């Protein structure tokens, strides 16, 4: 049931029924509790929405980091959004495989992150390059002359950087 095909479908959009489309829009309004400028769809947390043969709606969500404290809050907020929209019988499923990657943050999500002052993850797939070596652009002035202060930041998904051009510190969404 938890096949990789779901994620491909979620990423590509696939052919959605009217109900599925409505639920995607509904979930696109559920904010991430730690970075509320992003929705759980922007973050790639929603893996699939599909009307199954059993007549019920199946919604798959995946945790970002194993220990992310927001996971439970995201689950509850998704459940509440489904219930309020009349989908109380929808099944909310946790998907572990394939594991979440920052590559799944959508283009819209990346633009929102940058506008919020958080340098988005690099566009190249996280697995295909040395994340430590890739230059990170300052979200304020755009300079590539930045340095990493710490591998870790205020939440599990962020690292701490400093811009050497405009001297401002900033968060970088980790590539994983």
């Amino acid at each position: 049931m938890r096949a990789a095909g779901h994620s491909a479908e979620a990423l590509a959009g696939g052919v959605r029924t009217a109900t599925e489309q409505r639920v995607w829009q509904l979930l696109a309004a559920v904010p991430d509790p730690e970075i509320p400028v992003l929705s759980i769809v922007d973050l790639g947390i929603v893996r699939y929405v599909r009307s199954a043969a059993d007549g019920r709606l199946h919604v798959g969500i995946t945790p970002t980091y194993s220990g992310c404290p927001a996971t439970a809050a995201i689950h509850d907020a998704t459940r509440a959004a489904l219930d309020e929209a009349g989908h109380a019988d929808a099944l909310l499923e946790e998907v572990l495989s394939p594991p979440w990657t920052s590559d799944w943050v959508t283009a819209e999500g990346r633009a929102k992150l940058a506008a919020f002052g958080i340098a988005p993850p690099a566009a190249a797939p996280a697995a295909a390059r040395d994340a430590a070596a890739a230059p990170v652009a300052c979200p304020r002035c755009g300079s590539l002359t930045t340095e990493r202060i710490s591998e870790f930041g205020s939440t599990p998904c962020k690292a701490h950087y400093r811009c050497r051009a405009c001297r401002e510190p900033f968060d970088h969404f980790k590539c994983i």
Partner: protein
Amino acid sequence: MSVPAAAPARRDRALNEALFRYVLRLADTSLVLGQRLGEWVGHAPALEEDLGLANLALDLIGQARLLLTYAGEIEGKGRDEDALAYLRDAPEFVNLTLAEQPNGDFAHTIVRQWLIDAWQLELYEGLGASADTRLAAIAAKAVKETRYHYRFSSGWLVRLGDGTAESHARTQQALETLWRFTEELCTPDEIDERMAAAGIAAPLTVAAERWGQRVAADLRQATLAPPARQPHPWHGKRGVHTEHLGHLLGEMQHLQRTYPGVRW
């Protein structure tokens, strides 16, 4: 008629029991190490390292939760992640002895972390191809986080080892103190062998060899001398622990032991 039918069922039960023990070992090592790292919160040498160690702890405890939940399901006696974490006594914990060693100074914490990060990295890489799909999914998720941890701890190992005379001496001292516990990481027992035979884990000797090469390369870069190989008297993964685990559990389990069943 009943004999051929019963034999495979008995084998399955034995394999199930071994799998339970195996998953519990992985879970306990992450849980205990995560708890140890949590002791640094508010005390690390710099704010960035304080955050770093807390983030490592968070990932490790998250991995432990996934593994403990799965272990409870394999066991099938209704124990969930909380029951397994808070209501077992020290001899029932099966973490690596290294994971429970005290934090010591920052060099001790980094050496302990680096040794276990490198070990988890090799182990989870192998488990990604496990015949057990649930374990494979947990490992595939954990390995990405572990790679990040290893970058942090190996970076600090080199910085400390190849740093000042003081940082070098203290890191070498930490290595001498903790090295005695590494033999356990590399020595398979009947549960490891059973997992390898069932295709659930790669043979531990394969991961151990890769671990040894990785550790040796890092030590060279850190200008640290590898201690001599030592015999193997430590059996944390069989439930025989140093005195340190009991104190750690006393703190970790205090609330649930004092007020059984209490909830936030």
